[in-house]
């Protein structure tokens, strides 16, 4: 590989673990009885947030949202982290892929929250 190729690869790798997570706000969501609690979550605009999703059911569930560009399976009795944003103000629906009729929710992104 040419020297410039290695340089490019090194430059890309140096970008990987760039952002400290200490300042990332954390929001909790629970799955119980194939429902999301809370059903509606308000988060601030233009801010990356971490969703901690706790699946209290015995069966797996998948947090899915095309609008948020996220798809994450949470095994029964386990928790998972989902990073979303920074987002523009608006409503971003999500649902449970395993129980789409009952497991539905939305993230409300608001200015200055």
């Amino acid at each position, binding site marked *: *590989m*040419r*020297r*410039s*190729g*290695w*340089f*490019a*690869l090194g*430059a*890309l*790798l140096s*970008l*990987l*673990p*760039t*952002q400290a*997570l200490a300042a990332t706000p954390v929001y909790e969501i629970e799955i119980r009885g194939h429902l999301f609690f809370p059903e509606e979550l308000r988060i601030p605009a233009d801010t*990356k947030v971490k969703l901690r999703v706790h699946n209290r059911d015995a069966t*797996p569930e*998948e947090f899915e949202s*095309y609008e948020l*560009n*996220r*798809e*994450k*399976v949470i*095994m029964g009795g386990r928790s998972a*982290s*989902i*990073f*979303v*944003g920074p987002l*523009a103000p608006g409503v971003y629906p999500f649902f449970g*892929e*395993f*129980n*789409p009729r009952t497991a539905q929710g939305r993230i409300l992104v608001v200015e200055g929250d």
Partner: protein
Amino acid sequence: MTHCRHWVGLFWVLCSGLALADGVSIGKVYHPYVTPLEWDLEWRALHVQENPEDGRERLQEHALGLGRALSDRLFLEGYLIGERSAGESLRLAASELELLWQLSEQGEYALDYGLLFELEHEREFDDWEAAAKLLLEREFGRFSATANLGLIREWGNGVDSEWETSLALQGRYRHARWLEPAIELHLGEDTRAAGPVLLGSARLGTRESLHWEMGVILGLDAPTPDYTLRGLLEYEF
């Protein structure tokens, strides 16, 4: 603005520095994500009107794959690859194993990243190809940019034993689940090509979806075929 110059500079360096892989290296652009519990049945095809490298016309390659998530970070897929060209019937040409390893949580860092390992055996000359590819992705609102940087080793009776590199870039606009326009760039020693691609997926039921891709990749230099049609159907369950 500084960020923009940084990315443009990096892109230029990549194009000039990593375009070393030989053979036509146009194919699927991989994303660094694994969905646990998922199975995947995949068919993908390439059609090349004329391959300047060996003069073969109406060359077609079909790959049929079956994959399964091994954990929340690993996905394994095996392929059977068939080939045909003008005057030839379809024959089993190669087999391939792929292992995708998701290394970061989506959206956690400035770039999402993963690794793809490939091992391919070509039957006619008992040739082997092993590759490791760094998969990078970043969201910009409704846009997503993906890069696959490959380091490849070839050996066997029909090829020179050598190291190669490859680069594939995809810029995608997430217009709607069923339709996402994209543009791709593919670089290798005998490949410099770019063109538009349409992608999309449809939910068929609980834990069932169909993903599709189709594109026309245009050659940008003499060794690259004038155009390559690529298509993909992926049933995820």
